[in-house]
């Protein structure tokens, strides 16, 4: 009998055990996240078939909802769990050779905490518990951004912290307001009580939540921390931040909007916001010379696209948005990992320093290229079905607004293509200026394995999207059917 | 049937050669008379050709030879598309459009031949040839399209036959305009002044023909004779009702040609830009007006 609690408990426990292993041998430390996340991956995959039939509920301490804290492992929760575990697992392999600084155990502790927080956010059914996990996620990511301890990373971490802390305060205030009115913290219970968001007393918490989670989800104009943080964190952490952290923020936001408030009237606004985020992210990325900032701005754009798709709030739209989310998680993690190692070798984050990398590091460059093509949405990679589904969802609405917006989105895709192709050209078609180190430097296996696995997923799902679409459809129905959610938590 | 066709072909070629050479000689004679000179005998071009065939010649290579053969055969082939009275051996093979394209072969051949001669002046001449051709093709295309649209056929035989029923093309207003335009561009087609830019002996030493001596020059002269015949015959067929009988046909061509010769005798030469500008202005405008009228009135 696998229990969703294990998904949180095991990594959390192991995180604090890391220093003790450190007493035994410094070399074991780095395998702890590997083990923990492998376990998580297995458990969540085991849970999958069960969850698809019926969401799994766990009441902590035997309290029945709405009184105790409960975990709700619905399809969407498990989907996120699998993603988190998968990417976390691969990034932990990547970290074997990538993280070489002396404070390794801190890295691994914080890394595990980050993923625990993310897992907690997606699994919990209690709004305050969500906040707590969210804070775990945030605090560990603040510290991980500062991990290198150099000038830029500290600066970014401080800025991230100030904005993030403000966002958390707003969430907490929202929770307080909700609790003051309904006297409960269980999301299903709250949802059952909230009939409309029209009154100010309901609306203000909604707005507070949107803003608070929006900071973490990097919605425009709350996303100023993201380029700094993503570009100055270690690349493995950038991959996790970009691939998981902001998606979890988006998840929280969507969960709140759909399930907690059922606020269908604000969705148009969110959709516009998504398109604006997309355009601004892509435009900013278009002008970047720093590869990691470019990828970071691209993440902003992708988040905007997901927000747009999710805000369409039809089955097609949410499926498309979630597909895009999966593809972005895989693709952007791959890009950060591949770019990270190339940065590690070339010693500079400037795009021009990547010139000639296609010859020096053929596999990494190939993986980067595939990731870039996938993000742009070229078949046969995973980005294409996502794009197709989003276009389909938008056009399905048969409204002029959607058609216009879809053209803006496609314009953004073209801009995105422009800057990604520029990097691809730099990799393959520009001669290296520094002719001395022309020799091939194949990356170590621990770097290549996660990159290859991610590449494999991108290609396989790109060719065979049915692999995940079933899950996505049931996830979408979970998000859309608010009444079912309430009923299943509180029968 | 086949013998008949072969006979027709031979007659047409011989007739064209004779008329063409006669026109060349005539042009020299008439020019001389206009200059108040006695002038050479009418048969002077024939004498020249006989002499040239008896001379040795220098060749610059295979393409130099091939070009002139290609050019002359191209001209001869065009003859077969033009109706001479009832005779038109290739009437069923594409009509006026093919004539238009086959008229290309001759300059192309000369150009290739001159190109291999590796003389820069040849290249200048070729360049001028193509530019001038581009200059007069624009009105010429408009003219031919006017005619084809007016009669709604692309077959030149049909055009001639319809003129027999409805009278000469000149009697219809749009075709009158294009006929005038055609007369304006005829000197350019025939390399007469004021468009005598291509050979321009005083300026670029006879241009593409600069390396031609002996039989090359002879063939080139024959080709020029055919060219004269073709251009005049095309005009006559399109606008002056074609050949009701050969003598009449010849007379029409002669009158047009003499008009051209008078112009030739009294005008100086354009520069190439001036020529193109002229050709793209007046003849093109006239022809364009004709085409608009035709396409509006259906």
């Amino acid at each position, binding site marked *: 009998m696998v229990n969703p609690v294990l998904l949180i408990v095991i990594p959390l426990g192991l995180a604090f055990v890391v220093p003790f292993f450190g007493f035994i041998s410094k070399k074991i430390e780095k395998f702890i996240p590997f083990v923990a996340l492998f376990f998580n991956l297995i458990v969540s995959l085991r849970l999958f078939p069960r969850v698809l039939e019926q969401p799994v509920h766990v009441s902590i301490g035997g309290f029945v909802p709405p009184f105790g804290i409960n975990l709700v492992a619905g399809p969407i929760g498990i989907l996120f769990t699998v993603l988190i575990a998968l990417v976390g697992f691969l990034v932990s392999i990547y970290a074997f050779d990538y993280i070489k600084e002396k404070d390794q155990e801190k890295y691994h502790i914080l890394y595990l905490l980050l993923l625990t927080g993310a897992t907690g956010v997606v699994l919990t059914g209690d709004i305050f518990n969500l906040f707590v996990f969210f804070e775990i996620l945030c605090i560990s990511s603040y510290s991980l951004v500062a991990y290198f301890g150099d000038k830029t990373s500290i600066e970014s971490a401080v*800025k991230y912290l*100030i*904005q993030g802390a*403000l966002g958390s305060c707003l969430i907490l205030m929202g929770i307080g307001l909700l609790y003051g009115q309904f006297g409960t913290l269980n999301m299903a219970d709250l949802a059952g009580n909230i009939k409309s*968001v029209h009154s100010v007393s309901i609306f203000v918490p909604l707005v507070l939540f*949107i803003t608070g989670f929006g900071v973490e989800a990097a919605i425009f104009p*709350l996303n*100023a921390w993201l380029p700094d943080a993503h570009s100055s964190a270690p690349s493995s952490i950038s991959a996790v931040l970009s691939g998981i952290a902001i998606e979890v923020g988006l998840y929280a936001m969507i969960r709140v909007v759909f399930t907690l408030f059922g606020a269908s*009237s604000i969705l148009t606004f969110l959709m516009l916001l998504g398109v604006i985020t997309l355009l601004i992210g892509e435009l*900013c990325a*278009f002008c970047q010379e720093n590869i990691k900032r470019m990828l970071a701005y691209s993440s902003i754009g992708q988040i905007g696209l997901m927000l747009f798709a999710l805000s369409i709030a039809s089955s097609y739209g949410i499926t498309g948005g979630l597909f895009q989310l999966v593809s972005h998680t895989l693709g952007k993690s791959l890009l950060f990992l591949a770019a990270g190692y190339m940065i590690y070798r070339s010693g500079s984050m400037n795009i021009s320093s990547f010139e000639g990398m296609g010859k020096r590091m053929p596999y990494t460059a190939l993986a980067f290229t595939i990731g870039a093509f996938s993000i742009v949405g*070229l*078949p*046969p990679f995973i980005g294409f*079905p996502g794009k*197709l589904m989003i*276009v*389909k969802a938008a056009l399905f609405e048969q409204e002029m607004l959607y058609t216009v917006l*879809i053209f803006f989105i*496609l314009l953004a895709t*073209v801009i995105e*293509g422009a800057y990604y*192709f*520029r990097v691809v050209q730099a990799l393959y*078609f*520009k001669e290296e200026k520094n002719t001395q180190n022309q020799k091939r430097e194949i990356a170590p296996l621990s770097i290549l394995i996660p990159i290859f696995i991610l590449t494999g997923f991108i290609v396989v799902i790109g*060719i065979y999207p049915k692999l995940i679409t079933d899950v996505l459809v049931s996830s979408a129905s979970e998000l859309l059917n608010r009444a079912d959610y309430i009923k299943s938590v509180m029968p | 049937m086949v013998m008949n066709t072969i006979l027709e*072909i031979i007659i047409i070629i011989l007739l064209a050669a004779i008329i063409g050479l006669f026109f060349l000689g005539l042009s020299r004679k008439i020019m001389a008379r206009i200059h108040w000179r006695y002038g050479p005998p009418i048969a002077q071009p024939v004498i020249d050709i006989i002499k040239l065939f*008896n001379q040795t010649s*220098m060749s610059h*290579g295979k*393409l130099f*030879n091939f070009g002139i*053969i290609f050019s002359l055969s191209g001209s001869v082939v065009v003859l077969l598309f033009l109706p001479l009275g009832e005779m038109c*051996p*290739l009437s069923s*093979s*594409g009509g006026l459009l*093919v004539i238009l*394209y*086959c008229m290309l*072969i001759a300059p192309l051949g000369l*150009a290739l031949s001159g190109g*291999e001669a*590796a*003389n*820069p*002046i040849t*290249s200048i001449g070729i360049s001028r040839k*193509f*530019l001038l051709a581009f200059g007069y093709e624009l009105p010429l295309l*408009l003219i031919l*399209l006017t005619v084809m*649209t007016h009669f709604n056929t692309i*077959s030149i035989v049909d055009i001639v036959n319809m003129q027999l029923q409805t009278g000469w093309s000149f009697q219809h207003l749009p075709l009158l305009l294009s006929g005038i335009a055609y007369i304006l561009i005829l000197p350019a087609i025939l390399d007469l002044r004021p468009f005598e830019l291509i050979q321009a002996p005083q300026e670029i*030493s006879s241009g593409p023909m600069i390396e031609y001596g002996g*039989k090359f020059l002879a*063939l080139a002269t024959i080709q020029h004779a055919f060219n004269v015949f073709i251009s005049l015959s095309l005009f006559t067929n399109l606008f002056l009702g074609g050949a009701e009988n050969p003598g009449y046909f010849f007379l029409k061509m002669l009158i047009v040609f003499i008009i051209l010769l008078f112009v030739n005798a009294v005008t100086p030469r354009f520069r190439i830009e001036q020529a193109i500008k002229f050709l793209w202005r007046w003849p093109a405008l006239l022809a364009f007006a004709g*085409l608009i009228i035709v*396409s509006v009135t259906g």
Partner: protein
Amino acid sequence: MNLIILLAIAFGGALITYFLGKISQKIRDIFAVFISLALAVIAACFYNVSSREIYYTGFLDFPFVLRVNTFSWFFAVTIAVIGLFSIIFSLNYIRKRGNTDFYYSMMLLVIASMIGIVLSGDLVSFYIFWEIMSWSTFLLISYNRGPAISAGMKYIIMSVTGSVVMLVGIVSLYLHYDTLVYTELSGLLNNASSGYILFIIILFFIAFGVKNAIWPLHVWLPPAHSEAPSPFSSVLSGILIKIGTYGIILLIFVIIQINVFLNLGEGILSVRYIISIIGVITILIPTFIALLQDDAKRLLAWSTIAQAGYIILGIAYGTSESVAGGMFHFFNHAIFKSLLFMVVGAVEYRTNGVRDLNSLGGLIKKMPVTFIGGLIGICGLIGVPLTNGFVSKWLIYKTLILNNSPFLAFAALLGTWGTILYSYKLIHNMFLGQLPEKYEKIKKAPFSMQLPIVILSLAIIFFGIIPGLPLHVINSIESGFGMEPLTINIWGIASDTGTINMLNIFTAVLVIGIMVWLIFKVSKKSTVIGQYDNYAAGTTVPKDKYNYSVNFYDPLCRMISPYLKDFIDDFYMSLARSIKNTGNGIRRIYTGDVGHYVIYIILFLALLIFIQINWELW
């Protein structure tokens, strides 16, 4: 044979080629040639086969269908054969360059995806192959580095723009009719409103127009074609842009039926006329721009755009004859344009990358076979009778004239005369005139280059004399589209309104040519002299200085060049610049001052509350 096997060979071959190259260069070369030969042979085997199969259903409930009929067979065979020749041509051309494995596998991938495009029977798999073709082409265009990088960039951006727009069209069709399989889709649009059909046409035309380089969307083509490796240029120009043509035919004749298409709009404002006019503009402007070019490949690139205009004109005009002309011109253009690119490539190969027309000359003495190829190529391009280009152009002109569209015909014909000018310049400046001394030691092109050149030249003449063979195929394609068939015979066309019989012309030219040749032969033999024994007013010809090729058409160019600035390109470039400037401006909002960021958060919150309190939107 099974269609899926054909595709598997194509894609698998591309992949295996890459890894074979790691083992041995020689085996890889042989394998690449073998694969492309196999593709050509297998594709040819599908003649007159009409089959259809669903081969994959795992993609978002869209069934993937492969189908073959005469229409797709025609394109597939052309693609495979031209691909084969350009691979053969590559053998020597690419040998000394780096990254040859990459080159061959990408080349095969491009060919494979093109075959995939023409064989796919539904729009989603069409789109997937389309995009694979786009990015693999992008990778190959940039292969030469240097200026090729920006060329590749231009290409891929325009291509992606086009294809995303097409994606909207495809999805819209799916949502309206719930299927994307051609056979089910065709005829469904009969009842659609003309506004919707117009919407679909515009969306698809942007995508196909980018590939086919229709006039305002052509700017990627000149740099891409001129900077790509020459064998690939011949693929690009010969067949890749024709995939756009394929798409247009598919759109007009299969998805929207021809009778629906012809009835869209009235008179001069009908869709058919507008597209024809665009086609005519595509003929005229690039023709004149090609006149101004000094780079051999760039000249050919502009010429490609112009010729694509003929194809569009023929197809969009929509009569049975013009469509036949357009399709035949596609076939012919594939042959002679790839031939010409190969000729330029051979010269480029022997002169170490010189393709500046002003510095070449006189190569006919050194590379005679290449010259003959080039000569026949430009004859085909011009449409000299007895070459294949003639018949197709004749068909287009004829139908334009007889259907009372003289102005379209005029523009198309004028384009032909422009074609003469630039194509003669091409051949003159490369092969004729004086041979500069630095090229005295050039050898003739290697066999692997001469072979495709010779075969393609022969094909031009062959199909020029026997146009009935391809026209027969085109005829059955047209009857498949439900158009009235042409009355053709093996030598040409015989209809009431105008006949053409290439046999007559061929016989006449042959007999007369032989006669003239005999006259030439029996008269006194001429002595052969060298290029320095030349008239120069009595002086000796100075070496290297006595070559008139710079500014060949200077008088005309001076007249027209002020009007021919490529303002479309300027427009796109300024668009790109303004997007970049916008981006640069927008990113200033991330000031780096955390106080501002906090203000953003608070303002956002305040804005949301303000909206609700003021207007109660939610």
